[in-house]
C-alpha cells in the first residue's frame, strides 16, 4: 500500500509540474502554439530582416538594434500590475530605442517624461512607478508584438501606434474609444482644442477618438544639389511632371556610380513603399486608393503608377532594383543618399529630421543644409493630381493610445496627456523642429527649421491621408506586391491583373473598381 501511495504522489507532483508549465505557456500570448507561433520570438528579436517600416511619423527606420524586442508579451507586465502600497505602476511602449530607431523619443521618455511625471504626481501625493519598454524593430513587427500582447490581455498602459492601425486595432477590441476608457472627462483636457480636426482624424475611427495624435508629416522629393550641379541640372529644382523627374534622372545617369532615382518599391520596405512611392504617384494621376466605398483596382491610374516603376527600374534603369528587393534596402538607400550616391529620393520630413540630420540622424550628412534640396512631388502632368492639383503629397502620423485592460486607466490618461503637454513636446524636440499635433506648439517650433516650415505651409495644404479602414494595411501589402512584381520583371498588365484578383478576394469584387 505504501508503494502505491508513493506512486500517487509522483503522479500528483508530475501533474502539478505539467500544469505549472502549461500555465507559463498560455501566458506568453503566442496563442495556438502552431509552429508559426513558436517561431515568433525568434523572428521578432532579430533586426536584420525586412528593413521596412513606414510611417510611424515621429520617425522610424534605421539600424534596428538586435535583441531589443521580445515577442509574445513575455516581458509585458503593466496590464496586470496591481497597485501595491499605493504605488501606481505604468508602462509606456513605443517603437524606439536609445541609440537606434527613434532614439530621440526613446531618450526623451527615459530622461524627461518618466522623472518629470513621477515628480509631478508626487507633488499631488501619488506615487507612480513608470517603466519604458523600448523596441527598435520594423513597424510591422512592432505592430504584431503589440497585437499579440493586447490579445493576451496584457501589454503596456500607454503606447504609440501608427494612425493607420487604429481601425484594425479598434475592430479587434484591442483599443477602445477614449470616452469608454477614460470617461467623458477626456474632453475637458485643454490640449484637445490645440489639435486640429484633420490631425485628430488620424486617431479617429467610426467617428470616435481612440487616442491622441502626436504629430503629422508630409512627403517631398529630396535631391542632392551637388550631384545636380555635376550633371548640369539646376540647384533649385522644380519638376512639374513625371517626365521632368525622368529627364533629370537621365542626366544624373551620366555620373559614374550614382543611382539617379530612389522610389521605394517592393514588400521588404513595407508601408514605406506605399506611403513614399505608390500613394503619392497615385495621387499624381488623380486617383485615391479608396473613394466612394470602393478600392482602386486594375485601372488606368494604377497601371500608370506601375508603369512609372517599370520605366524607373526596367526601361530607363535609373533606379537600383536590388535596393527594393533587399531585406535592408531602405536603410541602405539612406546610407547611399548620405554618401552622395543617390540623386533623387522620395521621403517624408522624417528623412530630414532623423535620417540625414547632421546631429543625430541614422545616416547623418554634415552639409545637409547646403547639399540636400527638397521640392514638391509633381503630379503626372500639371493639373492631373487629385482635386486638379499640380503637386501632391501624403501624410500620416503616430498616435498615443491607452490599453483598455489597464488597471490604472486614469493614471494612464494623465501620463498620456502629460506626454502631449507643451512643455513635454518642447523637451522632446529640443532645438529640433517637427510638425507636432498641437497648433500652439507648432507656432513656436516650426520657425526653427525652413524645411519643416516648407512642409507645414506648402505640403500640408495639398496632402492626402490614407483611409482609416481596417482593410487598408492588407490592400497596402497587395500594392507593395504589385510593385515588387514589376521591379522583378513582370509586365505591368500582369502585375495589375494579379493585384486585381487578390484585391477582389480580399474585399469582395463589388467593392473594387476597374477599367
Amino acid at each position, binding site marked *: 500500500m505504501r*508503494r*502505491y501511495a508513493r*506512486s*500517487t504522489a*509522483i*503522479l500528483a*507532483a*508530475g*501533474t502539478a*509540474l*505539467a500544469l505549472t*508549465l*502549461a500555465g507559463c*505557456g498560455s501566458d506568453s500570448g503566442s*496563442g*495556438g*502554439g*502552431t*509552429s*508559426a507561433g513558436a*517561431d*515568433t520570438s*525568434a*523572428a521578432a*528579436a*532579430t533586426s*536584420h*530582416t*525586412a528593413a521596412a517600416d513606414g510611417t510611424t511619423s515621429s520617425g522610424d527606420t534605421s539600424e534596428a538594434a*538586435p*535583441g531589443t524586442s521580445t515577442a509574445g508579451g513575455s516581458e509585458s507586465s503593466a496590464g496586470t500590475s496591481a497597485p501595491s502600497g499605493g504605488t501606481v505602476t505604468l508602462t509606456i511602449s513605443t517603437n524606439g530605442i536609445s541609440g537606434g530607431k527613434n532614439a530621440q523619443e526613446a531618450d526623451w521618455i527615459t530622461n524627461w517624461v518618466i522623472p518629470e511625471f513621477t515628480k509631478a504626481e508626487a507633488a499631488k501625493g501619488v506615487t507612480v512607478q513608470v517603466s519604458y519598454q523600448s523596441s527598435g524593430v520594423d513597424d*510591422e513587427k512592432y505592430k*504584431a508584438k503589440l*497585437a*499579440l500582447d493586447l*490579445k493576451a490581455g496584457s501589454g503596456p498602459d500607454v503606447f504609440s501606434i501608427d494612425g493607420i492601425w487604429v*481601425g*484594425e*486595432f479598434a*475592430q*479587434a*477590441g*484591442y483599443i477602445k474609444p477614449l470616452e469608454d476608457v477614460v470617461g467623458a472627462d477626456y474632453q475637458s483636457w485643454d490640449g484637445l482644442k490645440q489639435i486640429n480636426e484633420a490631425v485628430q482624424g488620424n486617431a479617429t475611427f467610426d467617428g470616435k477618438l481612440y487616442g491622441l495624435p502626436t504629430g503629422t508629416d508630409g512627403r517631398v522629393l529630396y535631391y542632392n544639389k551637388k550631384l545636380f550641379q555635376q550633371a548640369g541640372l539646376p540647384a533649385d529644382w522644380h519638376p512639374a511632371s513625371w517626365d521632368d523627374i525622368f529627364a533629370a534622372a537621365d542626366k544624373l545617369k551620366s555620373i559614374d556610380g550614382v543611382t539617379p532615382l530612389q522610389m521605394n518599391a*517592393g*514588400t*521588404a520596405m513595407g508601408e514605406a513603399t506605399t506611403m513614399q512611392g505608390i500613394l503619392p504617384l497615385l495621387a499624381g494621376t488623380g486617383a485615391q486608393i479608396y473613394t466612394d466605398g470602393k478600392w482602386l483596382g486594375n485601372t488606368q491610374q494604377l497601371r500608370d503608377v506601375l508603369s512609372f516603376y517599370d520605366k524607373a527600374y526596367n526601361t530607363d534603369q535609373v533606379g537600383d532594383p*536590388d535596393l527594393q*528587393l*533587399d*531585406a535592408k534596402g531602405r536603410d*541602405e538607400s539612406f546610407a547611399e543618399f548620405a554618401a552622395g550616391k543617390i540623386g533623387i529620393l522620395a521621403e517624408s520630413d522624417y528623412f530630414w529630421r532623423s535620417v540625414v540630420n547632421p546631429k543625430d540622424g541614422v545616416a547623418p550628412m554634415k552639409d545637409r543644409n547646403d547639399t540636400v534640396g527638397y521640392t514638391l512631388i509633381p503630379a503626372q502632368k500639371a493639373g492631373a493630381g487629385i482635386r486638379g492639383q499640380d503637386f501632391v503629397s501624403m501624410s500620416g502620423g503616430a498616435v498615443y493610445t491607452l490599453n483598455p485592460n489597464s488597471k490604472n486607466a486614469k493614471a494612464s490618461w494623465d501620463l498620456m496627456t502629460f506626454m502631449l503637454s507643451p512643455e513635454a513636446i518642447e523637451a522632446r524636440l529640443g532645438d529640433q523642429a517637427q510638425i507636432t499635433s498641437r497648433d500652439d506648439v507648432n507656432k513656436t517650433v516650426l520657425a526653427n527649421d525652413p524645411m519643416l516650415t516648407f512642409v507645414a505651409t506648402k505640403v500640408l495644404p495639398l496632402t492626402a491621408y490614407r483611409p482609416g479602414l*481596417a482593410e487598408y*494595411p*492588407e490592400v497596402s*501589402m497587395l500594392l507593395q506586391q504589385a510593385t*515588387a*512584381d514589376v*521591379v*522583378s520583371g513582370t509586365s505591368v498588365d500582369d502585375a495589375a491583373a*494579379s493585384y486585381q484578383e487578390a484585391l477582389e478576394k480580399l474585399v469582395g469584387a463589388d467593392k473594387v473598381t476597374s477599367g
Partner: protein
Amino acid sequence: MPRTAVATDAAGLGRARAGGFVAPALVLVGLFLVFPALWTIYLGLTDYRLTGLAAAAPKMVGLQNFRDALADRFFLNSLWLTLIYVAGSAIIGQTVLGFALAWMMQKVRPSVRGVVETVVLLAWLLPGSVVSFLWWAMLNRRDGTLNALLDTPGYNWLIQHPMLSIIVFNTWRGTAFSMMLFSAALQAVPPSQLESARMAGANGAQQFRDVVFPHIRGHVLTNTLLISLWTFNDFSPYLLTAGGPNHKSEILPAFIYNRAIGTGELGYGAAISLIMLVINLIIALLYLTLLRTRKVKT
C-alpha cells in the same frame, strides 16, 4: 489490488504505478503536442486574424483556407522552394558533406580530427540568430567578406542567389550532425571485414558498396529522416533573407510566419501549418516503412 498487477511486467510495477510514471510525460505530450495540433486544425478552419473584426469574432469558413492555399501562387512557390531547400541542403549537402568528413577523419591524426570536429560542431552549436548575422555580414554586398575574398565588390549574393545562399548556409550549419552520426557508424564497421575485402582485391568503391554501406544503411536512413524533418521545419533562413527577394527564398516556415504574423492571417497560417504537419507525418511514415522492410530482410 496492486499486487495482482505486479506479476504482469518485468519491473514489478503494475499497471497503475507504471501509468503513474508515464502520466507526466503523457500530460506534457498532450498539452504541448496533441492540444496545439488539434487547436491548429480548429484555427485552420476559421478566418481568425491578428487584428480587425475577425480577431474579435472569428468565423468558421470550413475548408476555404485549404482551397485558397492550393490556388495561392505564393504557397505553391513556397512548397517548391521547400523541396529544393530540403533536397539541396539536407539530403545532398549535409549527408554528403557529413559522410565525406567522417570518412576522411578516420585516417587522420587524432589532433587534426579534434580540431576539425570542434570547428564543424561549433557551427552547429552556435545560436541561429548569431550564425545568421555572421552569414549576413559575410554575404553583405557592401563590405561583405565574400566579396572581399572573391574581389566582386557590390555583388549582392542574397539577392542574386537567395536559394543557393540559404542552402549553403544550412549545409554549413547542419553538417556536424551527419558527420558525428556517420563517424560513430563507421567505427562500427568491423575492421576484419574490411581487411578481408582488401585481401580479396576489392577497390575503394567496392569496399564501400559491399562492406561499409550494408553496415551503415540504417544510420543513413535515420540521418536522412531526422535532417530532412528538421530542415523542412527550419526557420533560420528567415533571419538571412526574410523570404525575399520577392518570395524567392520563402520556404514554408517563412511563408507561414509572413502570412500569420506579417499579414495577420492567423487562420490561413494555421491551415498551412496543418499541411506542413501532414507532410511531416508522411515523411516519417515513409521512413518507418523503409526501416521495417530493412529489419525484415536482415
